[in-house]
């Protein structure tokens, strides 16, 4: 991987040099054309021309953008260093490779998405270096990837959907979850969105990202067959894996990282994310591939052989999914699947990082599936079918994945699905949240039963929620419970 990376970098640098030479002057249509012609010889450069064209159009958009000072200084730093340009260009190229199809597909929309940090911006950078009017773009590129301009090229305002798409694209292309954070924080700072909007934005972005991954995976598959060079194909597959892997993880981490307050958990999260990035691509790739196919087949009956390598170890969960009506409950299915997968992933990270042993992970997962069967039986009054573990023949990677999924699911379920509140609280003290969740659950059950006996309806639940919120605040004040515990409790109540 590293070697390939280096080779790639070198390759890119060579190319970039050409580009630099050619773009030393203000880009003229002729030179642009030349580049285009030149580019076409190498398929990976093809998009570069698009990028440049894009850059020009973006320049127009950016002229109306505000410029940020800190970014400007960064920009100048960038200006001064061609080599770093090349390097970042190379990196951009790499991710460009991965998201090539995505780039093509999203180019029309991302025309106005100024802060695009993939190759489009890198090439733009070269041009911008010599074009002062492009400075505005650069700062957003480095600073906050907020679309400075909220208008399309033709002047029509961007819809919310567009923004979501843009952000998703950007995350995808940049291979960096931090994009979202940066964007959102800037949007918040600018007062363009509220906190709750930020929450729902994340959810939407996640969805868009997922779609993106799916589409790109499809395209990448197609492309693989077109590729003549083996190395390139391999690289693509790997890159695709890594890339498609990361968005999914990013989504997880996105959730996890939202808890800024919990410094310790934050640290833990960071580590795990680091671990995740380093993690073997194969499984992740396999996951993702299976995931995409799963998504595609969402409307059909899914069989384990479809490639859902993780979920096949959860026969009960699987049956549960199947029992959900495909048409009506699509969203629920999606949610459940996402939850399960992220849990698996998470546990994998935990084992990888040594937080738990593989054996613990295995037993956790085995328990989980058994509990799914049991609980489904209890709650739905039907059983999913003979509880059928696939045996203890898990290999370590699968175990860890499953473990991660389980843990993640715990967190997911401890929070409202549309909120990005941190699961980090629960991470470091899973026992406490469980106990609290259990206690609250018992109370709600008792209330429901009690109300039923007395013939009341359960509008009391909202009153109870308010009362509990109030009590929680007063307890936090008195030092009886800690702030994050209070947050957990409130969150559990709000998700009821």
């Amino acid at each position, binding site marked *: 991987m590293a070697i390939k990376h280096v080779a790639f970098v070198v390759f890119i640098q060579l190319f970039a040099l050409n580009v630099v030479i050619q773009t030393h002057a203000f880009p003229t249509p002729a030179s642009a054309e030349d580049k285009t012609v030149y580019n076409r010889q190498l398929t990976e450069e093809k998009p570069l021309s698009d990028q440049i064209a894009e850059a020009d159009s973006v320049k127009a958009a950016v002229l109306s953008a505000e410029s940020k000072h800190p970014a400007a200084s960064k920009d100048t730093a960038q200006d001064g260093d061609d080599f770093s340009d090349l390097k970042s260009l190379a990196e951009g190229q790499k991710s460009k490779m991965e998201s090539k199809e995505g780039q093509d597909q999203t180019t029309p929309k991302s025309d106005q998405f100024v802060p695009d940090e993939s190759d489009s911006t890198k090439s733009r950078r070269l041009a911008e270096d010599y074009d002062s009017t492009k400075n505005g773009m650069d700062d957003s590129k480095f600073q906050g990837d907020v679309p400075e301009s909220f208008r399309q090229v033709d002047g029509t305002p961007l819809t919310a959907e567009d923004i979501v798409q843009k952000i998703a694209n950007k995350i995808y292309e940049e291979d960096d979850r931090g994009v979202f954070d940066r964007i959102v924080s800037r949007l918040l700072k600018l007062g363009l969105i509220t906190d709750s909007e930020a929450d729902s934005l994340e959810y939407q972005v996640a969805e868009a990202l997922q779609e993106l991954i799916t589409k790109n995976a499809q395209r990448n598959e197609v492309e693989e067959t077109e590729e003549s060079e083996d190395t390139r194909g391999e690289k693509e597959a790997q890159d695709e894996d890594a890339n498609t892997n990361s968005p999914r993880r990013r989504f997880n981490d996105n959730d996890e990282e939202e808890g800024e307050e919990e410094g310790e958990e934050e640290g833990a999260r960071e580590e795990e994310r680091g671990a995740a990035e380093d993690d073997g691509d194969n499984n992740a790739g396999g996951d993702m591939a299976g995931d995409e196919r799963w998504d595609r087949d969402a409307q059909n009956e899914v069989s384990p052989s479809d490639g859902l390598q993780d979920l096949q170890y959860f026969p009960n969960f699987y049956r549960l999914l199947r029992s*959900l009506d495909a048409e009506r*409950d699509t*969203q*629920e299915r999606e*949610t*459940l699947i996402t*939850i*399960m997968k992220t*849990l698996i992933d998470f546990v994998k990270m935990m084992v990888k990082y040594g937080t738990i042993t593989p054996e613990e992970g295995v037993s*956790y997962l085995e*328990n*989980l599936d*058994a*509990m*799914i069967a*049991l*609980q*489904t039986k209890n*709650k739905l009054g039907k059983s999913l079918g003979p509880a059928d573990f696939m045996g203890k023949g898990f290999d370590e990677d699968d175990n860890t994945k499953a473990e991660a999924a*389980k843990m993640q*699911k*715990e967190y*997911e*379920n*401890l929070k409202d*699905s549309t909120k990005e509140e941190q699961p980090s609280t629960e991470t470091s003290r*899973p*026992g*406490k*949240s*469980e*106990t*609290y*969740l*259990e*206690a*609250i*659950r*018992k*109370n709600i059950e*008792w209330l429901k039963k009690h109300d039923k006996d007395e013939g009341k309806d359960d509008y009391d639940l909202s009153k*109870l929620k308010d*009362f*509990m919120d109030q*009590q929680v605040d007063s*307890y936090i004040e*008195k*030092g*009886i*419970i800690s702030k994050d*515990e209070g947050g957990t*409790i409130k969150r559990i109540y709000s*998700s*009821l």
Partner: protein
Amino acid sequence: MKQSFWVSLLGAVAVVAVARGGGDGEISFEYHRYEEMRKALVSVWLQCPTISRIYTIGESFEGRELLVLEMSDNPGTHEPGEPEFKYIANMHGNEAVGRELLVYLAQYLCNQYQQGNDTIIELIHSTRIHLMPSMNPDGFEKAASQVNPGEMKDWFVGRSNAQGVDLNRNFPDLDRIVYVNEQDGGANNHLLQNMKKAVDENSKLAPETKAVVHWIMDIPFVLSANLHGGDVVANYPYDETRTGSAHEYSASPDDVTFKSLARAYSMFNPVMSDPNRPACRKNDDDSSFKEGITNGGAWYSVPGGMQDFNYLSSNCFEITLELSCDKFPSEDTLKTYWDQNRNSLVNYIEQVHRGVKGFVRDLQGNPVSNATISVEGINHDITTAKDGDYWRLLAPGNYKVAATAPGYLTVIKKVAVPHSPATRVDFELESMIERKEEEREELMDWWKMMSQTLNF
């Protein structure tokens, strides 16, 4: 809604899969360090928020909250006529069983309430129960932190608070004062004078002690018990001997009542009430133990203890419960201790509903607070609380109960008191001014009549 159902189903599944040893409604019999104890109490509150409340009466020396879990049908308020009850444990940090028993008791009461246990439901509706699992959390941490693979924990480590103060010798010694008053006449109750000087500015008092003193003064507790370890017996006042000797039966005015209360606990504890129980240690002198109970002074003299302080500073009757030969037994014995004490703990709370209780009001129906309720033959008076309500614990028998208040005329009533429940006796007090008015009117009427007859 449906989605959240699925989500919560999965969540519950995941949660339960990871939950430690928890079936539904089951108590987990383990030791709770401070954080775990706090978490356990919060969980009880979360499970039963309509009948429970957590509050803190202050902080220990090292800053841990002195947590209390209150259980009642209206947590946070004193309902007029509803008696207040408390259990305090672990004032000696290394006497750990009581602490755990109170945590289990909290969980038990909550579970039983929700499962429809009528006895518990009735108890919670008619009583305000306060549970303080640990008065000395600092000491407990010290005791619990000892690393003894296979050995018993030390007899003394963690007993005192973080300052090295034995909290059960740290309370203002009111026994001395009452003994003097017995001889020379004087008040027989509410002997804590000058709260500010005696408590707040008293540098000898530990923060835990101060917090509890304030707590006792704030809430009109009626009955209480103080949980210890190191032996197995129910100990009642007085703890301090009159003559200062090491062992001497030191009866309080309510000796009969106290014996009845202490027996009410011991009789449901098979170990405590076992007449053939061997002594905890070979050379122990448990000659004073009878039917699982003992007078404090007869066992050994304890000056400055919390039990006597309750009785002599407030209306609260407190006994001391020693629950285990080992002060800090191993975790796997906790379930046994719970089994031995569960019924006793519940039954003792029910003792608060005994004797005589009621309201003292004036002729207009307004409550008379701080009126004195005295029982003929018992040299210990109690007072009415803010709403004019009082609870006078008495063993079965015939009594004359008097209600007095400054500026009012005393009213005496005869009462036959059964074992339980409490007998309701209300008093309507006539103020002296009203009586004077009546007399004046009578006089005027007489004068009028006289003058008419005699042609004045």
